[in-house]
C-alpha cells in the first residue's frame, strides 16, 4: 500500500506573492515532483520580519501568532526563502521566549519548517531534477539561509543535475548583497556600496545569470545589475530547478 502523500503547506512569502508568483509555482512543481501534496493556507500574509527587525516586537508577535495558527496541522511548512524560513525556524521560538505556551507551538512549527531547496534535498532526499538551462550561471548565498539554516551545498547539489548548466562559483558569494529589508532604504548609500561590490564580482565571472534562494536579495541584485547596464540576468533558483525559466522573463527584464 503506498504511503499517503506528505502534506506540505507553502509559505509563499510576501515578496513572491507581490513580485514573482512564478517562484511560488516553481516551488509547488518541485514539491509535487518530490511526492508532496501542496496546499497554500489562505490566512497567510507575511512572516512579520519587517516588524521584528524594526524593533516592533508586539506587531511581530501578533503576525507570528497568525502564522503559527495558519500553518498548524501540516506535515511540513516550506518557503522558497531562507530568510522567511529562518524567521519561523529560528526567530519565532526566540520571539515567544517569555510566553511558554506559544513558545511551545512556535518550537513545534519550527521543527516542521524548511527552506525549499534544503527540504527537497534533506527531507525528500531529492538528488537530481529534470531541468535544462544552457549556459554559465553563478549562485549568491543569501545570508539568512547560509548562516541561520546552513544552506550552502544543497542548491549546488541540485544545480549540478541541470542539463546544460555550468555553475561558476562567485568569489565573495557569502558576503551580503546589501538588501537587508528596510536597511536597503534607510541606509541606501551603504546598501548601494555593498550591491556595487556584489554586482562587480558577478560581472567579472562572465556568467549569463545569477541565482539565489531569496527574492529580497534578488530584487537588490537585479535592480543594481539593470541600473548599471549589465546584461547578466537574475533568477530565483527554484525557477531553474523546476525547469520553468522559459515561462517568465528574468527578474527586472521586460516581458517578451
Amino acid at each position, binding site marked *: 500500500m503506498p504511503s499517503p502523500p506528505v502534506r506540505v503547506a507553502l509559505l*509563499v512569502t510576501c515578496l*513572491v*506573492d*507581490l*513580485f*514573482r*508568483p*512564478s517562484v511560488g*509555482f516553481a516551488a509547488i512543481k518541485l514539491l509535487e515532483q518530490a511526492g508532496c501534496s501542496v496546499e497554500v493556507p*489562505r*490566512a497567510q*500574509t507575511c512572516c*512579520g520580519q*519587517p*516588524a*521584528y*527587525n*524594526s*524593533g*516592533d516586537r508586539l*506587531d511581530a508577535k*501578533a*503576525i507570528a501568532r*497568525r502564522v503559527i495558527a495558519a500553518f498548524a496541522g501540516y506535515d511540513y511548512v516550506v518557503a522558497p526563502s531562507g530568510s522567511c524560513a529562518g524567521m519561523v525556524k529560528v526567530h519565532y521560538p*526566540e520571539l515567544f521566549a517569555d510566553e511558554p505556551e506559544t513558545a511551545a507551538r512556535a518550537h513545534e512549527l519550527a521543527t516542521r519548517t524548511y527552506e525549499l531547496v534544503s527540504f527537497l534535498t534533506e527531507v525528500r532526499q531529492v538528488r537530481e531534477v529534470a531541468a535544462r538551462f544552457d549556459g554559465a550561471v553563478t549562485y549568491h548565498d543569501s*545570508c*539568512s539561509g547560509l*548562516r541561520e539554516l546552513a544552506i550552502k551545498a544543497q542548491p549546488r547539489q541540485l544545480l549540478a543535475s541541470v542539463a546544460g548548466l555550468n555553475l561558476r562559483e562567485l568569489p565573495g558569494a*557569502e*558576503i*551580503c548583497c*546589501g538588501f*537587508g*529589508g528596510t*536597511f*536597503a*532604504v*534607510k*541606509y*541606501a*548609500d*551603504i*546598501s*548601494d*556600496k*555593498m*550591491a556595487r*561590490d556584489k554586482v562587480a564580482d558577478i560581472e567579472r565571472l562572465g556568467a549569463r545569470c545569477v541565482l539565489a534562494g531569496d527574492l529580497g536579495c534578488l*530584487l537588490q541584485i*537585479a*535592480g*543594481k545589475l*539593470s*541600473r548599471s547596464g549589465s546584461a547578466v540576468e537574475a533568477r530565483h533558483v527554484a525557477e531553474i530547478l523546476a525547469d520553468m525559466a522559459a515561462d517568465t*522573463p528574468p*527578474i*527586472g*527584464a*521586460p*516581458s517578451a
Partner: protein
Amino acid sequence: MEATSHTFAGNARAGLANPVLRRALDMAGAGFPARRAEAIARLPEFDALRDEGKAIKDHTIGHLDFYLELYERQVTAAGGVVHWAPDAAAARAAVLGICRSVGAKTVTKGKSMVAEEIALNEHLEANGITPVETDLGEYIIQLRHEPPSHIIAPAIHLMKEQVEATFRAAHTALDPARPLAEAPLLCGEARAVLRPQFLTADVGITGANFLVAETGSSIIVTNEGNGDLTQTLPKVHIVITSIEKVVPTLEDAATLLRLLARSATGQEFSSYTTMSTGPRRPGDLDGPEQYHVVLVDNGRTALLGGEFQDMLRCLRCAACLNHCPVYTAVGGHAYGWVYPGPMGAVLTPALIGLDEAGDLPNASSFCGRCESVCPVRIPLPKMMRHWRERQFALRKAPAAYRYGLGLWAWVAQRPALYHALVEAKARLLGRLGRRRGRFRTMPLAGEWTRVRDMPAPEGRSFHALWAERGRARR
C-alpha cells in the same frame, strides 16, 4: 573624545566618497578575513575552542564580583594597588593622581581602547603631562590628532603615503631627503624616535587583554613589543582596563589567547604576550617600582543580568569589524566614537546612550557574518535588534516610518484585505512596468530607486492566481 555617532549617516556617506579611505579599506578588507580563515583551517578544533572560550567568559561574568575581589587580593599581595573607577571621570582622576604623585612629565602608553574610551590623552595633556603612544598605529594617529578607526589596527584608514607625510611633518630633526616610502622604513623611524621616550618616561600606561584572578596578573598582547618596554622601563606602571577582562586562571587566559590571536590577525599566537604581576621584587632585574591597576566600570555592570550581558564576553579581537560589510564600506570613523563595527553598534549605545548612538544598531543588514566569526559567539545581530526594540518602545524612529509600519502590520493581520491590496498593487505595478520590466523611479520608493532599479512585479499576486487555479480545478 567628542562623539559624532549621531551623524552616522553623513559620516558614512563621507567615508564612502573618500577615495583614499576606499583604497586603504579595500586592501585591509581582504587581508584580515583571509588570514583568519587560514589560521582556523589549521586548527580543526577551533569551534570547540570557541565553546570553551564562551563558557569561560560566561562563568566569569556570572561570578564577576567574586573574581574581581580575588584579583584585587592577589594584586595587593603582589605589592600592587587596585583603583576602582565607576566611571570615566573617576578613571581619569585615578591615573592623573598617580602621575602627579610622582611628578610625571611624560608617560608612554601601550594601546588601550579603554584609555580611548575615557579620553585619557586629552585629560593628561590638559594637565601638563605629555602622553606618548608607543604602538605604531596609535603613534601615527596621535601625530595626526585622529581617533582610532579600528580596535586593533587604529590607523587602518591610512595609506602609507599619508604616514610618510605625517612623519616628515613631525620628525623635523631628521634629514628631509631621507628615503621613507616603504613600510619597514616607516617602522624603523618610529622605533628610533620612540626609543628615547621609553627611557625617559616617568610612567608607563598599558591596557590589558586579560586579568588573571588566581595570580593577580595582567596580560597584554602586542606584535611590536612596545608593551614590554612601556611597562618595564618607567618607574611606575599603570594598567588601565575594564572589569570584564578578568578570567579565573592562567589556563583560562591561555585558552582565550589562542582564540584571540587567530580571530584578530590569523596568528597562532601574538608575537609578544606580556604578563605583569605587581612591581619589581627584591632581586628582580627590571620592572617598575610601583604597580597600579585602574579598573574601569563605566557602564559595564549596568549590562549584567540584562539583554546585553553577552557583550561582556567580547575579547576585542575585531573579527566582527573585519568581516562586516558595513564597517568595511564606511570605515571606523563613521561610527563616531571609540568602538566601531558590529561590536561598537552594540556597545556604544550602552556606553554613551541611545540618543547619541541610535543609528549604529540600525545600520546593519543583519547579514550575521559578525556572529559567525565571533570567537566567543556573541549574538551581535540579536543585540542590535534589542536596541531597535528599545528605540521603537521609546518612539525614536521617525513618525512617518512608525505609522507606515503600524499600518502595514495592521493590514498584515487581515488576510482578506491584505490579499486584495497586494493583488491591486501587483496588477498596477505590473501594468506600469511591463514594457521595461523595471522602474527607474517610483513614488514612495525614492530611496530605493535613487541607487538601483526596482524590478517590476509579474502582474498578478500569487494568492490571486492560486485561487483562480483552485476554482478552475473544481
